[in-house]
């Protein structure tokens, strides 16, 4: 079952690459829908009381001790669903606008989905690393080929920068992952199964350096302050539908990695570097928020807001507290749900104004009240207004951090106020104020609405009952956090 | 005579050859210097062969002589080809490929 979820996108991607041009969008769309249905079936069938489920475990490279091992637990179940979901509007949006070299585009996009799903499903550490590295490749092409050149920065150079910087961490992580397996085996049978590795444990001396190899990969991917140097150029270059899924899902893989890999396998190091990580997270929150409200490019506002949000998520994870980690996981999903429509809305705004700078914008709500309301809901989600699931995520995160370090919690909470400012500013400067010449206040079309509204509806449903997610994730997350807690004692 | 002297001589031969490669600019002379270097190796080999009193080293030296000849042949061939193309026979002038 999980194999089907994993490979369906790639298979359909290949078909769309080879299919006649006009069928490519349909093939790709079908592929993402099938993936979504399969993921939904798995999520519905998920039993929160049992740990790892739907396990697939086949020897892949016996010579290297690597297994093709998939599984789903409370941590990954909704992230898989989010991944399956996020790609649907991205494909639909591209299909509705048409694109150059469509077959190749959908192939890359769907290959990216397979890689991302792989990272969430993998239960073998090296398989995880492989998919983690693989993710960036299709996006490199997507951003580079279909991206747009900005002043002084071509899409090509922006993406080279992106792939170099994100892979810096990934390669170190590869060394680290190998080291984990080898050191844990201690001359015995080599295995990279995450659960077994967590059980075997590592000597704390090795944990310390391996921890940073993993952290480098995850922090760059998020990206976290001060490792976000690649982000602005890449975000500005990227085609928006691809950027939507990139920002919504790929950035979460880093946070997921902390939760799934680092916490259980390197509990001593986690304990040791907890404060450092909390400070990095705090830096991301403050810096990301402040940057978000000085920027006028919508993509960068959202980009830096992601830096801040990922900061919150990291904060929650490294609170090493049940509420913090659960909040972080919930927040990963919430943020994904917010970002996908946000970037599509940016695309719609750009279609109406011909620009992505909020400087000269305004008044788009005039003839487009529905559009404005959709954007308003998304904005409120972004700033985590109490009543949204995002708020519950932040609330639990802050609660977790509060139990760990009061000062950090209080400083972090100022990020909430800054978020209110930059998110609202983004909304106001586009939708409100006078409508300048040359901007076209046009209502959102039904077709575009169908891409965005379902996700917005999911946001609203979750706002009424975030427990839908928390109920399933709770046990797995608590088990993960418990490992670190034990190490602390 | 003690083996040391042969070894010193071989080392000198080798070093002179290497120095020649470093300082001479005419490819033909450079090829000559290469022969010196090989001869240095061969002499050392011969001395050790005598020292150990087995024939392997001597066989080896025979082979080395052949190899050296072959090398020079190819080298000279290339020099001739360059000469025919009116390329100056100066290794310092061969700077098309660099950077």
């Amino acid at each position, binding site marked *: 079952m999980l194999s089907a979820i994993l490979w369906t996108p790639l298979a359909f991607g290949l078909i769309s690459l080879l299919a006649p041009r006009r069928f490519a969008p349909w093939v790709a769309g079908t592929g993402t829908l099938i993936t979504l249905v399969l993921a939904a079936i798995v999520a519905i069938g998920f039993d929160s009381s049992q740990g790892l489920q739907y396990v697939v475990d086949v020897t892949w490279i016996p010579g290297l001790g690597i297994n093709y091992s998939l599984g789903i637990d409370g941590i990954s179940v909704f992230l898989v669903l989010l991944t399956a979901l996020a790609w649907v509007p991205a494909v639909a949006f591209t299909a509705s606008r048409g694109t150059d070299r469509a077959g190749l585009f959908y192939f890359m996009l769907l290959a990216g989905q397979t890689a991302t799903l792989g990272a969430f499903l993998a239960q073998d550490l090296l398989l995880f690393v492989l998919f983690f590295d693989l993710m960036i490749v299709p996006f490199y092409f997507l951003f580079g080929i279909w991206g747009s050149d900005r002043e002084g920065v071509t899409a090509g150079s922006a993406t080279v920068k992106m792939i170099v910087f994100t892979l810096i961490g990934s390669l170190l992580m590869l060394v680290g992952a190998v080291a984990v397996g080898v050191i844990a085996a201690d001359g015995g049978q080599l295995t990279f199964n995450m659960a077994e590795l967590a059980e075997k444990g590592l000597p704390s001396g090795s944990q310390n350096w391996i921890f940073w190899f993993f952290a480098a990969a995850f922090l760059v991917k998020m990206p976290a302050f001060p490792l976000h140097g690649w982000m602005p150029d890449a975000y500005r270059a990227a085609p928006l539908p691809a950027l939507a899924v990139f920002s919504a899902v790929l950035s979460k893989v880093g946070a997921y990695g902390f939760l799934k890999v680092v916490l259980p396998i390197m509990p001593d190091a986690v304990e040791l570097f907890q404060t450092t990580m909390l400070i990095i997270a705090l830096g991301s929150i403050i810096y990301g928020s402040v940057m978000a409200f000085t920027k006028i490019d919508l993509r960068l506002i959202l980009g830096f807001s992601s830096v801040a949000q990922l900061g919150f998520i990291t904060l929650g994870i490294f609170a090493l507290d049940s509420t913090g980690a659960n909040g972080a996981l919930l927040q990963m999903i919430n943020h994904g749900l917010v970002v996908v429509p946000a970037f599509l809305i940016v695309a719609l705004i750009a279609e109406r104004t011909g620009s992505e700078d909020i400087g000269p914008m305004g008044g788009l709500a005039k003839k487009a009240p529905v559009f404005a309301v959709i954007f308003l809901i998304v904005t409120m989600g972004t700033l985590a207004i109490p009543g949204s699931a995002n708020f519950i995520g932040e609330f639990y995160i802050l609660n977790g951090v509060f139990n760990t370090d009061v000062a950090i919690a209080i400083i972090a909470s100022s990020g909430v106020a800054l978020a209110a400012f930059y998110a609202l500013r983004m909304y106001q400067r586009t939708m409100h104020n006078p409508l300048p010449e040359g901007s076209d206040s046009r209502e959102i079309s039904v077709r575009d609405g169908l891409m965005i509204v379902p996700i917005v509806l999911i946001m609203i449903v979750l706002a009424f009952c975030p427990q839908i997610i928390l109920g399933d994730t709770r046990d797995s997350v608590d088990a993960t956090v418990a490992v670190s807690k034990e190490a602390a004692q | 005579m003690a083996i040391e002297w042969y070894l010193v001589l071989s080392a000198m031969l080798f070093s002179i050859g290497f120095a020649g490669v470093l300082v001479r600019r005419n490819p033909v002379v450079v090829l000559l210097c290469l022969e010196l270097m090989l001869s240095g190796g061969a002499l050392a080999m011969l001395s050790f062969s005598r020292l150990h009193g087995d024939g392997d080293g001597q066989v080896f030296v025979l082979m080395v002589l052949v190899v050296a000849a072959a090398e020079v042949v190819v080298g000279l061939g290339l020099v001739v*080809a360059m000469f025919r193309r009116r390329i100056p026979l100066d290794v310092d002038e061969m700077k098309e490929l660099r950077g």
Partner: protein
Amino acid sequence: MTFDAPTIDYAGLSPIITMTAGLVLLVLVAVFDGVKRTAPAIALLTLATTAGLLIWQWDADTPLLNGSLQIDGLAVVFSLLVVISAAAAVLLTIGDPSEHQAGRPDFLALLMASVLGMVMLTMASNLITFFIALELFSIPLYALCGTNLRKRESLEAGLKYLIIGSVGSATLLYGMALIYGASAATDFTGIASGLTEGGLISDSLTLVGVGMIAVGLAFKISIAPFHQWTPDVYQGAPTPVTAFMSAATKLAAFAVFIRFFLVALEPMAAEWDVILAALATISILVGNVGAIAQSSLKRMLGYSGVAQAGYMLAGIVVATQQGVDALTFYLAAYLAMNMAAFAAIVIHERQSGFSDSIESLRGIGRSNPLVAWPLTIAMLALAGLPPTAGFIGKLYLFQALVEADWTWLGVMIAIGTMISLVYYMRVVATIWMSPASDASLQVPSGEPGVDLDSPRRWYLVLPAILGSAAAIFFGIIPQPLVEFAQHAGNALAALIS
């Protein structure tokens, strides 16, 4: 004194005999104009037969010719890879101006001689065969580099390669003399026991000998700081020759490197591992850094080859069987990627009037998928990105390094790989993300060598497709290649602690 004729194991020798026969045949063919056109077929047939015989000897583990050669897993595996590389080179040669210049059978005869030297080198287990085989593969290669007689660069590359190569050979020879002097033996096992029994393991003169042999071999596999010929020769030599030597010289030289260092010098591994690790590190840094900002694709691949050699050397540093396995795997993968890359370059060259500048690749992602895809896959594989064999190769190396407590060298490889992304990805970016420049489209069709149909020539396309397919295939299903590599490592299992 009675003379006992040595028993000759013809089965074990059969690949060498076949190669020699093919070589002689080619030289004969060169004489007769009427049959000259069959030369490539003869060459391919010879290679195919050799490959067949090698597979036949898959499980062999016997000394040949009184122990001067040894056919075992290591030899078979490496010879097979060399033969594959040669076959690709033969295909790519067809229609190349250098082949035209030198005369087709002569050109191929030189090539086959070089291959013969390499095959012998993989089997060499004696200093004499080691040296002869090394020279047998090197000397024809010097000539091959200069075969494009009309091009000044080609001649320059040939002469540079020859002179620097000979310096390397002489150094190697001198080192051999010193080792021979210390151990009183020329066969590898004899050296090992001679050194151990003589208590000369940390003797200065022995170590100097080891150092000089290391220098000689490092030169062949383009290890910095003995690498400087590499970019020049890669760029100047005819592309099919570059294609051949890029992987094959590394294969052959690494085979003997493994055999000599891990058999003959195994007792003193603790003496030389640090220096080799240092050389590997220097290579990784110099190669990767040098490749940045190159404008010639072949030259860039030359530098990249220096860096890759550094990665591979790490497999020897660890002095374990797993290291050999990883190295073999990496070399096989490297062969596949290089085959794809150079085949693509050959196709592109013939279309673009022999330009190998990276700029000339602008926009070919759209106009010329048969160049673009293999080149892209090759670049991704060289950069070690999944899902290519390059990724698994690095993984394998990391594992070997970590197990042998050489993690810092693994980190060096990781850092080198990061730097390498800059230039590999720049090529990919040029292919896919830059609009076609006017210059690359305006190829004067009257110019000699312009072959607008080159993407339709099966003998050019085949290596490109096979290479890139292999790079992907073994990235997804690496186990067959892992086992293949382990076959080489197993041959030394008994000898490596």
